[in-house]
């Protein structure tokens, strides 16, 4: 059974590593659902948050093959219950349609999304939540035929583990 896995990877801040990481997915023919890269809380270390649907055996192999790359510090995979995961979405909606159909603003309120800009042509809605909540809001708004543009960022995630595995690794390696 394919499950949504989130692979959290840390690497040195060198050029070309993202390419090396995504190539592992390509070889195994697994599609990346979302990808976020940013600097981590450790100076000089980059964090990659990658989600994909596959079986556990595959995600296990992918994770090990990512970690094998020389400049990758650590790669671990998680199911959604092991992490706190959030995603941001932006919707550009037609203002005339919003005025015509009160259901649109009702839907926005029900999802606790925020209207951040309004003019006579369009309105922009910002929503932060779980990936599936974004799916749900998008589906609802789309049914009301008011979405002009839609964009979402890659999922970002923080582990619920009480231990900080990267810090433990760096401490261990520095003590060698």
């Amino acid at each position, binding site marked *: 059974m394919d499950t949504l896995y989130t692979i959290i990877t840390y690497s*040195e801040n060198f050029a070309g590593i993202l*390419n090396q990481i995504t190539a592992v997915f390509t070889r195994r023919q697994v599609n990346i659902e979302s990808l976020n890269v940013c600097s981590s809380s450790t100076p000089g270390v980059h964090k990659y948050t990658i989600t994909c649907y596959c079986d556990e055996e595959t995600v*296990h*192999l992918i994770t090990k093959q990512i*970690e094998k790359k*020389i400049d990758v510090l650590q790669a671990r995979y998680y199911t959604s219950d092991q992490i706190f995961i959030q995603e941001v979405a932006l919707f550009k909606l037609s203002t005339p349609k919003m005025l015509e159909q009160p259901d649109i603003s009702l839907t926005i309120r029900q999802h606790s999304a925020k209207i951040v800009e309004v003019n006579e042509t369009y309105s922009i809605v910002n929503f932060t939540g779980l990936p599936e909540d974004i799916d749900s809001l998008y589906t609802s708004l789309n049914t009301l035929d008011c979405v002009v543009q839609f964009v979402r960022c890659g999922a970002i995630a923080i582990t619920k583990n009480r231990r900080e595995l990267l810090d433990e690794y760096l401490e261990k*390696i520095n003590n060698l």
Partner: protein
Amino acid sequence: MPTNKITGAEALMRSLEHEGVTTLFGYPGGAIMPSYDALYDHRDTINHILVRHEQGAVHAAQGYARVSGKVGCAIVTSGPGAMNTVTGVADAMIDSTPIVVICGQVGAAFLGTDAFQEVDVIGVTQPISKWNFQIRRAEDVAWAVSRAFYIARSGRPGPVVLDFTKNAQTDLTEYQPKHVDFIRSYRPTPQIDEAAIKAAAKLINHSERPFMLIGQGIELGNARQELLALIEKANIPVGCTMLGLSAIPSDHPLNKGMLGMHGNLGPNVLTNQCDLLIAVGMRFDDRVTGNIATYARQAKIIHFEIDPSEINKNVHADLAVLGDCKETLAAVTKYVQVADNSEWIARFGVYEKEESLKVIEPAIHPTHGPLLMGEVVRRVSELTHNEAVLVTDVGQNQLFGCRYFQFTQSRSVVTSGGCGTMGFGLPAAIGATFGAPDRTVCLFVGDGGLQMTIQELGTIMEQHSPVKIILLNNNYLGNVRQWQYLFFRKRYSFTPMLNPDYEKIAEGYGIKARTVVERTDLDDAIRDMLQTDGPFLLQCAVMEEDNVLPMTPPGANVDEMMLEIK
């Protein structure tokens, strides 16, 4: 103003010397010219071998590395020069061969502009190298070279590509030798888990029918003594992968032969009858396992591996013992009890007899009919007292070579295992003569593969490199023809080959040559070859439609070997 600054190219030469490089295989060209200019002043310490094509440089570096245990090194120019090394880099990756390939590159200011002879070498080699790096500044040379050699040779070895921009070669820098032996994101050798060691020993002690599969990991880890100590104490029979053939002497009583599609009958059949399968430094290639769904299902499996990503990749292991096998094997041996296993070991004898009668004897001691590849291989082996280095190309020459050559010393097999690169043999053999100058290097090559890199005869001529080239000429792409015979209704689609006069070609290169057609001339010709100082081409006119047997057909179960073709 006095300055101790040197060019990046000079820094490269000093860095190579610092890494102990004494032999460099290469081919000059535009973007690497500053480095070649610097090399001109280092000819006393660095022996540069001018190959005839860049592919030859990488394969030679591979051959050098495989027999010497040192890092092989190749240097080429940008664009086409670098691209011609790609096959060799991929080959070294899958066969875990430590090499460093240095490619010239256009100046940093021209990168990305489609400049003359600019190719994205980093992009191309990224998935097929252990590490690659573009040196864009002269001050990074010492660090990059040291890091490259450290990564290439440590842990599970592999190829590293350095893409050296022209400005970094000509710019001036201060030079301080660097010694990289630590990268915080890279753990070449996993820490040994004592619990896994004890668990492995326990499984071995409780096993009644243990069987060990050994691969090139034993050679790479210099673990022959540790291996022998373990198997002799616990009386564990052993099967070798193709790259692991010389990890243990061929005549060792516990050596039960080669694994895989064209391996020996006993080790393949009994893989599916053992109760404990102990894999050491091998990766369960599909050519070894056959049908994975039925592979050793009855057995518990222990996998001794240095590379964690190999665990459970192809075959599920009940127990992984991570680490350098030199250490893990020794650690396990301490806890292993002396065992007899003679009844189990005797079972191999039954299959040995059957294979010997039906396959081996007819192949190596035929009494009539045309010359056979098997007999040529065995006679060359015997007349070198089984002490020579075996280099093969790819195809039937490789399979017969690996089946019938015999080994006494470590690091005696140089063959393209994972990649199956035709054209590998000739340049790899050249490299081997430099990596092991005191040993006899025997190359078995077919008429197909020889022509893929035949230009390297020029290198042999120039270097007087003592390669004993045994050309097993059957006027076919023999292995493909065998498959066509078996699986494509004998439709020989473009496998017959019209050959040139190889003796004349050898003569053109000043290489002594001889052709053997009759069985009665074979010994004399081999002696002639071995007694000749320098290179020799021995062309053997072998049976045209010979087949390598036994064979596990592709996708068949490991214990379903064909002994004959009806």
